[in-house]
């Protein structure tokens, strides 16, 4: 049990777009911080420490924390940068929580900032810098460079999702229309938020199905965009939280679970999990976080879910692995409207990663939206009262999973 009960009191965003050509990385992060502080009526002086994070190499500027300190308000304050691939945002949230929960004297309020300006650099160069070591090993083992690039370059991040999609469709019997339905719900939800990227209020399943395949079975209309954007979340102690807002979102469970490197494995040695949508890491992270939060029946106790799903098949997969729906039934719940904003278990009312993907910030945005739904301050607020919500993150080489469980009640001591 932690020494201090931590809570989220505010969250802020900057406008997300494919090219934020009017601001640079630092200014963009600052926009989100200003929004976050304004929402809670707090001055920067009240913040004791800062945690920040983004993807390495994506903007072509390594170690941005070295020259962004003033922009994130970190002068004369402790500053830590966390980066764990796609889960960066989720890890930043967890690091912010750890800061407060440790109960150190003088560290009471912590600002977590995550950002990404993908238009600055070349995302495929960033991604290939991850895979190049692996490709060079396989090349050294005698596979011609051309075939090695062909095998490993099968869609980069999207390729891994299409492996998952193929296996998910095989095991659950969901169709391409089901995947399109997930996308349509996300994009329409995105249109109801001011900060999201792909706002498509009139998107239809037919429109999705008319687009060509990017990587079978995923179509152009289904895939996540590359966005510029930032997100900031304010963590603080229970007593301060109660004075600051009416309903703070208490952080009752956090977990960050690493699993085996997906499909490729390290040094071409493959993976022991034959089915890429098995995702034992997610199952383990759910077990860990739910046990911390005292949740025994996630399908009944959780009222709202924000899952990290750049591609629609992943949204279905995560909802099952995190214990919210029975195995292989998630696509049926989208058909009957359970996951719509007015449904029984609303999912991704912010539009999710499928509509807005500033990679480093995406994980933190999930936590921020999950918190805002509890506080009743979300832009696309669900009609039912949200008592418990989850914010999920996924990334690394398809092997990292972070999960944050939030509630309107502090953890039972």
């Amino acid at each position, binding site marked *: 049990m932690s020494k201090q009960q931590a809570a989220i009191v505010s969250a802020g965003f900057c406008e997300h777009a494919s090219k934020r050509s009017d601001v640079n990385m630092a200014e963009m992060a600052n926009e989100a911080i200003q929004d976050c502080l304004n929402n809670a009526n707090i001055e920067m002086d009240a913040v004791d420490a800062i945690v920040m994070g983004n993807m390495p190499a994506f903007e072509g500027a390594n170690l941005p924390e070295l020259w962004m300190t003033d922009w994130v308000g970190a002068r004369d304050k402790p500053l830590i940068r966390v980066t764990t691939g796609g889960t960066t945002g989720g890890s930043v949230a967890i690091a912010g929580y750890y800061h407060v929960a440790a109960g150190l004297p003088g560290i009471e309020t912590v600002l977590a900032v995550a950002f990404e300006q993908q238009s600055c650099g070349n995302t495929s160069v960033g991604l290939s810098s991850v895979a190049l070591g692996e490709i060079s090993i396989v090349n050294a083992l005698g596979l011609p460079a051309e075939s090695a690039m*062909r095998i490993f370059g099968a869609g980069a991040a999207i390729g891994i999702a299409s492996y998952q999609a*193929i296996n998910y469709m095989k095991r659950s019997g969901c169709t391409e229309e089901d995947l399109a339905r997930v996308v349509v719900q996300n994009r329409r939800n995105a249109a109801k938020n001011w900060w999201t990227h792909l706002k*498509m209020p009139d998107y239809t399943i037919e429109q999705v199905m008319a687009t060509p395949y990017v990587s079978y079975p995923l179509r152009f209309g289904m895939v996540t965009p590359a966005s510029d954007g930032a997100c900031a979340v304010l963590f603080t102690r229970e007593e301060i939280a109660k004075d600051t807002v009416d309903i703070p979102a208490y952080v009752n469970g956090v977990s960050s679970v690493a699993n085996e490197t997906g*499909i490729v494995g390290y*040094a071409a*040695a493959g993976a*022991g999990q*034959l*089915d890429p949508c098995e995702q034992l890491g997610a199952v383990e992270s759910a077990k860990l976080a739910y046990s911390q939060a005292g949740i025994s029946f996630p399908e009944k106790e959780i009222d709202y879910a924000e899952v990290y799903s750049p591609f629609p098949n992943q949204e279905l997969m995560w909802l099952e692995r995190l214990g919210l729906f029975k195995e292989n039934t998630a696509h049926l719940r989208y058909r009957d409207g359970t996951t719509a904003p007015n449904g029984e278990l609303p999912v991704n009312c912010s539009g999710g990663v499928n509509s807005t993907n500033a990679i480093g910030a995406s994980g933190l945005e999930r936590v921020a939206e999950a918190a805002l739904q509890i506080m009743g301050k979300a832009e696309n607020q669900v009609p039912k009262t949200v008592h418990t919500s989850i914010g999920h993150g996924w990334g690394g080489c398809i092997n990292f999973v972070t999960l944050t469980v939030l509630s309107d009640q502090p953890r039972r001591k």
Partner: protein
Amino acid sequence: MVKLEYLKKEYEKTRQMPGKWPLSSYRYKFNITHFQPFLKALKEKRLIGLKCRSCNTVSFPPKLVCGKCLVQPDQWVALRDTGMVATFTANYMKDETTGELQSFPVIAIQQDGADTTFLTQLNPAVKFEDVYVGMPVKVKWKNQPEGNLGDIEYYDVIDDATKKMKLQNE
């Protein structure tokens, strides 16, 4: 390419500085010693996997460390040349002469007798629409193996006996 409409906002353009970041100047280190018996077997058109004494997991290609038990696997076992498609996807490439977009399957297979996946190529003549999870495949060797991963030219499709099986409730 299809254009999808969405509510777009244009932002003012500020000054941009172009820059370059070459990624070709790195040296990646890799321990190749545990691969040597494997490569030697490939030269004789044999397949072998590395078995962990602690959990009996057979890895193909060989793994330096067993992630489950944190021990070094050291027992070599012979494997058959057949396998099963564990998962697959399609890769697309532009034909340089005609400019046509070509698709071909990329598969991860589970070699019979091994417990891990191996990312490899399928016979280029097979269309990705015909590939399915659980499809049996067989190694197509290069004519003169040289003792490297390139000796496995590709995996070829073989007859699926399960398709002829009749289920009881049918």
